[in-house]
């Protein structure tokens, strides 16, 4: 009995000592702290006009205004193995008004389509090891607008080698989206509706699978370049449900019908060169083709002219050319016998040019003397498309550190 009591007392003593705390705690436990790195606010105002709206079958106004805002926060933390963890939080909010979307139901001022908002938050995490040159990251995102909901995620892996002169990055992304099918009003009404387009609350999936392979290399002290290959597969509801199509051999109105899969193969090339002490040339070229028959070339040139160590001007030019998809035709040019058809001028044959100018101010003691206000940048771009669409966009960036 005495032995049992001693054993019980011993066990009780060990349990109590496990929860006790000595005056000097040498466990090495430290509360993890996230260090604030930077915050960025980007706002833009976009306005466009044209006369080939897909909502009205390739004719009609394309007038649209859009206000976009994005707020990004970045934090970092160094772990016991000296790896740097970076966490990014993005909150995006857009609001737009569109004269063409209003024509989904032209007899009324349709509130859901003519004016809309989009909300899109996302969180990202990245861990990099300076010693080994490895990095690993992940991202989740959400987007919601009046007829479209999206859930997205991605993972990425990177490796530096060749004395950190060469970087390889691989990223796999997936977007699992739902598109609510809102048809043109005349196809929805019970008296004139064409059966399958009668008003029903139906959503269809629209999924995107993306793989990015990027290779970057420092060629010499002033020159570096990157090659990006990004195959992309889309499946599901790829036709826009409120895009009308008018045929040459019938008076009936139909909606756009495109294949339910699309394989895209873009290949991009960036090269940046620092001339002297005051001029950086940033160039970009992309070749694109997909299995809808579209081929495109994109060329961009931007100059960063450093007027002083704190003030930079960025004039830029962009040229874009694309061929039409196989199933595109203009208003009343297509036959009802075709399997697939669209009058969306975004998928037609055209060229476009963009002329822009930006100014960036990054003073040493903060913008207008405000200590943590690191940078302010304004950009303007005018865009002209050969299909009589033109647009203007003004952007403002504020950066805090």
């Amino acid at each position: 009995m005495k032995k049992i009591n001693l054993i019980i007392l011993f066990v009780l003593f060990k349990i109590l000592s496990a929860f006790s705390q000595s005056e000097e705690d040498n466990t090495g436990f430290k509360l993890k702290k996230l260090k604030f790195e930077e915050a960025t606010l980007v706002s833009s105002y976009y306005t466009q006009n044209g006369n080939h709206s897909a909502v009205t079958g390739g004719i009609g106004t394309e007038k649209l205004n859009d206000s976009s805002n994005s707020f990004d926060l970045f934090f970092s933390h160094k772990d016991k193995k000296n790896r740097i963890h970076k966490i990014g939080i993005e909150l995006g909010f857009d609001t737009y008004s569109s004269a063409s979307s209003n024509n989904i139901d032209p007899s009324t001022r349709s509130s859901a389509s003519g004016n809309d908002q989009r909300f899109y938050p996302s969180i990202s995490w990245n861990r990099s090891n300076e010693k080994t040159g490895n990095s690993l990251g992940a991202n989740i995102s959400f987007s919601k607008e009046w007829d479209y909901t999206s859930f997205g995620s991605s993972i990425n892996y990177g490796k530096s080698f060749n004395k950190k002169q060469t970087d390889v990055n691989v990223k796999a992304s997936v977007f699992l989206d739902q598109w609510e099918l809102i048809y043109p009003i005349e196809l929805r009404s019970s008296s004139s509706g064409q059966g399958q387009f009668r008003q029903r609350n139906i959503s269809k999936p629209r999924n995107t699978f993306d793989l990015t392979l990027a290779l970057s290399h420092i060629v010499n002290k002033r020159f570096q370049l990157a090659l990006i290959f990004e195959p992309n597969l889309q499946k599901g509801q790829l036709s826009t449900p409120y895009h009308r199509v008018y045929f040459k051999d019938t008076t009936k109105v139909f909606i756009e019908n495109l294949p339910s899969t699309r394989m895209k193969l873009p290949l991009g090339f960036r090269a940046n060169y620092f001339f002297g002490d005051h001029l950086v040339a940033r160039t970009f070229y992309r070749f694109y083709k997909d299995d809808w028959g579209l081929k495109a070339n994109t060329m961009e040139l931007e100059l960063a002219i450093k007027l002083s160590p704190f003030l930079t001007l960025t004039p830029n030019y962009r040229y874009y050319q694309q061929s039409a998809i196989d199933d595109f035709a203009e208003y009343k040019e297509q036959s009802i016998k075709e399997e697939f058809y669209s009058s969306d001028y975004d998928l037609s044959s055209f060229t476009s040019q963009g002329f822009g100018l930006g100014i960036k101010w990054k003073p040493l003691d903060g913008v207008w003397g405000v200590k943590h206000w690191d940078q302010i940048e304004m950009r303007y771009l005018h865009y002209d498309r050969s299909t009589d669409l033109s647009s203007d966009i003004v952007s403002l960036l504020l950066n805090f550190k």
Partner: protein
Amino acid sequence: MKKGIFIVAATMLMLSSCATVSEYQRMYINDSDMELSLRTGKKFEHAFQLYREGAAGATGGKSGGGCGCN
């Protein structure tokens, strides 16, 4: 296809450069205007191009998906 092969070949040729650039020699390379990714300030310029053009991707930015864009 031929353009793609040309781009890859030109890149491989440039990658074969033997010049070693040490960390302390990278003052031009590390300049913010030399970054090889899409500029943050161009975010929404790039976004409207996803809606108004048929091509997307390989820019270092958003590539489609997550929106009713191309």
